[in-house]
């Protein structure tokens, strides 16, 4: 049952803020050892970032010098960043990633919430079958579909358009499941008054259910956005034109064009990494909660 309580988010609106658990217990034995171990891991995990940053601020000559150094002999410089902005399409690709991921997130939220509501609240014929089919489809890994989907996109003349990136990415059966479980927990009494007043299903959904579901909607949105932002395989297959590439795919092409320009490679990589890292710094709590609540159901 413990796993289920993970996929079932605690609705913040209703849950009492009682502190049932006590996270900071005293472990007098080995506190230093624990801190040391955590610190070693943290350093190991931060080194790639640090090394990429140092490299990006080196001159190409220093970066390619066989004498590996954290402090370059000829000092730090922003040349690599300047060159990347001058030659590359990083800002354009960032924009492409931003609007396609936003579109995917919005469409996914709307269509998933609607169907989840139907599955949670409305008794209609064929509901069980629909539920079973959606759950079963969680097992289908996207790579299995890449060949027919590509062929289909050719037929729809959508290759090298944003539609090819967006449309196939809005189906997240697991998210439907997460939403349905949340809706199930909302007390029905809240709707009954509205039903008495003769409110339509749509009004109940929009005015009662959705406002109560903000935490889970945010969690799903975060999860979907991160996966769309970082998706590589499908955008890589469905787009070729440099002006339409998303950031992860564009970065793959920049790599080959620059060849062995190490500082520029690292500058590009850092620029590509920056948006989500920044968002994470600002919304850390929500993102961690979002990933943890949707995570087990969502991958």
């Amino acid at each position, binding site marked *: 049952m*413990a*796993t*289920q309580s*993970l996929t079932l988010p605690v609705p913040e609106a209703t849950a009492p803020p009682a502190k049932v658990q006590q996270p*900071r*217990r005293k*472990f007098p034995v*080995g506190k230093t050892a*624990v*801190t040391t171990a*955590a610190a070693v*891991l*943290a350093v190991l*995990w*931060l080194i*790639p970032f640090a*090394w*990429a940053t140092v490299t990006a601020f080196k001159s190409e000559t220093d970066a*390619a*010098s*066989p004498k590996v150094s954290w402090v370059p002999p000829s000092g730090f410089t922003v040349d690599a960043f300047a060159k990347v902005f001058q030659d590359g399409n990083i800002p354009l690709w960032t924009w492409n990633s931003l609007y396609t991921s936003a579109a995917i997130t919005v469409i996914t939220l709307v*269509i998933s919430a*609607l*169907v989840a*509501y*139907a599955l949670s609240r*409305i*008794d*209609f014929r*064929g509901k069980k079958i*629909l539920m079973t089919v959606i759950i079963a489809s969680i097992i*289908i*890994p*996207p*790579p299995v579909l*890449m*060949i*027919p989907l*590509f*062929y289909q996109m050719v037929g729809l003349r959508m290759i090298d358009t944003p539609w090819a990136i967006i449309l*196939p990415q*809005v*189906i997240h059966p697991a998210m*439907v499941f997460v939403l349905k479980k949340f809706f*199930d*927990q909302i007390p029905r009494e809240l709707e009954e008054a509205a039903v008495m007043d003769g409110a339509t299903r749509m009004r109940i*959904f929009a005015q009662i259910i959705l406002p109560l579901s903000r935490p889970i909607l945010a969690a799903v949105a975060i999860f979907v956005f991160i996966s769309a932002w970082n998706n590589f*395989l499908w955008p890589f297959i469905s787009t070729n034109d440099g002006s339409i590439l998303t*950031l*992860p795919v564009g970065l793959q092409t920049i790599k080959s064009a620059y060849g062995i320009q190490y500082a520029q*490679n*690292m500058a590009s*990589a850092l620029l*590509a*990494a920056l948006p*989500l890292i920044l968002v994470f710094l600002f919304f850390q709590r929500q993102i*961690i909660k979002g990933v*943890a609540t949707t*995570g*087990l159901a969502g991958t």
Partner: protein
Amino acid sequence: MSSPTTTATPRSSAIAPPARIISRRRRDNINGWAFAAPFLAFFLVFLVWPLLYGFFMSMTGKSLTGANDSLIGFANYAEALADSDMWRSLGNTLYFTVISTVPLVLVALVMAALLNVGLPAQWLWRLSYFAPYLLASTVVSLFFTWMYNPQLGLINDSLSKIGLPKVAWLNDPNVAMWAIVIATLWWTVGFNFLLYLAAMQNIPAQHYEAASLDGAGAWRQFFSITLPQLAPTTVMIVLLQVLASLKIFDQVYQMTAGGPSGSTRPVVQYIFETGFTGYRLGYSAAISYIFFGLIVIVSVLQFFIARRRSA
């Protein structure tokens, strides 16, 4: 947990007059399908259709250039089952899955356990462990290709500074897959770590208090309370990790392109190459379905193992 409420409410309406039941049913049918319609439309067009059409493609000689559309039955499957390159790439995928899942679960557990002790500055630890998960695969590959560089890379430089021999990380067929695993561990362990951390913090404190009164030390508490309480979470994490690892493509394609001499090429890359480099969409669709079959088998196996464990 919620199923009692879901089924209870419609039953209660059974006392309503028959005429209202009929009209309400009809309305529910219409409403239900109307709410499901938008999702269903996408679901049918971009998931069900490609799934079925892909199977049809696997029975044809369909090519990227449009040539050769003829139906050839199961010839593609027969060819694939005799294709040593396909078996090799499937083997690589399974090998990666096994050797990546173990550290991805264990390291995540260690990280979560360390933090659960209640270190100060929680946000900083979480940031360090989880931040790589927010990177695109391309960024991770750029970082690690650079660090693995045989002459100029940070890793080999550090190795030689402490007197160890240099390693041809991505160029040695015996090492390359491990290099990919290390990069993957760095990249995605933060996700499992978060799930573990959340699960640990859901363990009621009373368990620990009772154990403390019995005089159980930190280690004993971890092994007698934390680990058993985490068992269902572990089962889920392993299941998800196995499914995620089976899909390996990005890092390998970007860092080694499947090399050196095919030693890291996963089955998804083989599908990509037969279909798009070699034009043979029909044949690669057949391999996709063989791969899909493997995933279904693994999932079903895991499902039964998980059920037995939680039963």
